[in-house]
């Protein structure tokens, strides 16, 4: 069967080293396990906006640029305020996407990523923060209503809670489903058997 899971057990694939987690950090070469022929490195990103934000939030903001794309890694304690500043003062009026990634081996397991765009500046940036399992982040629905469904999807797939979301519930999976499929410890053919049996009346969805 072609859909054989790569790693059905919770232990992650050995290839997926913790290095992936620090991909965005400023020193990716140091952590990546097999010393690859150096790919393009993340460069520091400096702009008037970045220095304004750094002045305000100090070391909570780390700005870099990778392959010409700018992003910031922000401490989770200031991220909500920073996002509001980005909309109100830096004119990032369009929230393109809210998403996340799971790193099982890290202490702070989740990356939450906001992709923002400014129509006035024709510029796209990413804001990233790291949180531990069980921690929540502030919802940005009050800043960008577009985040409503996007945050629901992140909740649905990763189980990350967004504080202050008007109606945080599952969106793609059924309400009663157990588990968060895009977590790395959720196998590719895993399913909520109980839900399938009760609601679909079949033994298994596979």
């Amino acid at each position, binding site marked *: 069967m072609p859909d054989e899971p790569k790693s059905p057990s919770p232990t992650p694939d050995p*290839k997926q080293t913790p290095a992936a987690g620090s991909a965005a950090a400023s020193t990716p070469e140091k952590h990546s396990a097999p010393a*690859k022929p150096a790919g*393009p490195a993340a460069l520091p990103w400096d702009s008037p906006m970045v220095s304004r934000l750094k002045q305000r939030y100090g070391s909570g903001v780390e700005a870099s640029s990778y392959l010409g794309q700018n992003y910031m890694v922000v401490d989770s304690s200031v991220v909500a305020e920073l996002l509001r500043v980005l909309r109100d003062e830096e004119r990032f009026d369009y929230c393109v996407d809210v998403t996340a990634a799971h790193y099982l081996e890290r202490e702070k397991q989740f990356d939450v990523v906001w992709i923002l765009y400014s129509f006035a500046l024709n510029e796209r940036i990413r804001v990233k923060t790291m949180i531990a399992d069980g921690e929540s982040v502030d919802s940005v629905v009050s800043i960008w209503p577009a985040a*409503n469904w996007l945050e629901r999807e992140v909740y649905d797939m990763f189980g990350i809670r967004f504080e202050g979301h008007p109606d945080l519930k599952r969106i793609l999976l059924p309400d009663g489903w157990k588990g968060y499929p895009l977590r790395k410890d959720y196998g590719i053919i895993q399913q909520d058997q109980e839900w399938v049996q009760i609601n679909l009346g079949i033994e298994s969805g596979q």
Partner: protein
Amino acid sequence: MTDQTTTDPRRYLSHLELGEPDKTFLDTNELVINMGPQHPATHGVLRVILKLDGEKVLGTECVIGYLHRGVEKIAEHRTYTMFNPYVDRMDYVAAVSNGLGYCEAVEKLLNVQAPPRANYIRVILAELNRLASHMLWLGTHALDIGAITPLFYTFRDREEVLKIFEKYCGARLTTHAFRIGGCLYETYDGFEDDVKKFHKFVTPKIDEYEELLTTNRIWVERTKGVGSISAKDCIALGVTGPVLRASGVKWDLRKAQPYAAYSEFDFEIPTCENGDTYDRYLVRMQEMRQSLRIIEQAVGKIPDGPIMAKVPKVMKPPVGEIYHSIEAPKGELGYFIVSDGSTQPYRVRVRPPSFVNLQALDLMVRGQLVADVIAVIGTLDIVLGEVDR
């Protein structure tokens, strides 16, 4: 039925702040009804729970996920090359655009550039696909609100696009036309002639559609002022594509952040002012003409040269993250890819235009009639394969 989700539709409406129904001498009752998931006008398996006062819509709630296949999870268990055909199954009426966005995102991650000839082929096929997608939209949208004839016309003409696709890569719908690094297939003998012939054939056809609808009184009455949305609301809700442009925002990723070979062509971004269903219709009709313009320019000067960049057989992009987006027929289609240096992506996130645009449905239909809900779902041009992924 033991399906938990159908037991009490009312609970879905918990967050909607709904006003009291109008008081008349006949006492009115609010009515909660289900539209879909199996309904011809929902263009797939979309379920909309409507709260109605008579025929007036007080609020809606979309229930989606019926077509969820876990595309993003699948990506984590496939190599970069193996995942390529899966993206075609999201927005299956614009498979070429899906593939283009994915291939370009991975190319960025690998830091390679597709050769110019490949970029021209990509532009031609992507624009042909935009035409096919818009034609399908027009036919079904018109059918939904009572005009049956355009469906036959648009499907007849869309067939010509699909024939070109079939000749080029063997597939009509889920084409898998491009590969990471360029194109796998060289253009077949007579490709340029076919495209030119198609251009000549379809240009008057678009006038024909417009003749049927643009000044048709029934069409105008069914679409003018229906489902209006302002530019400010569009931006706040993240709505992109023709819907945004119909509200007056002149923004198109092909111009704002050109990809493939789009910077080399001369074309306009059609916009309208009112942001209603009629304006969205006009914008898409104009877009079809602009697509033809791009095709005409591109097919005349496809450069010679290789169609594939040098990419390793086993792709291991360096550790890093990338976001790349393109202007798909429905709006901004983005791919956020995280590489951990292995042959498989660590995380692929698809930013689907249909999913985000569908959020605007509630705002657009409040206070309108049930029949207008059908019109607005049609005009949003959603594909449920992409909404649910």
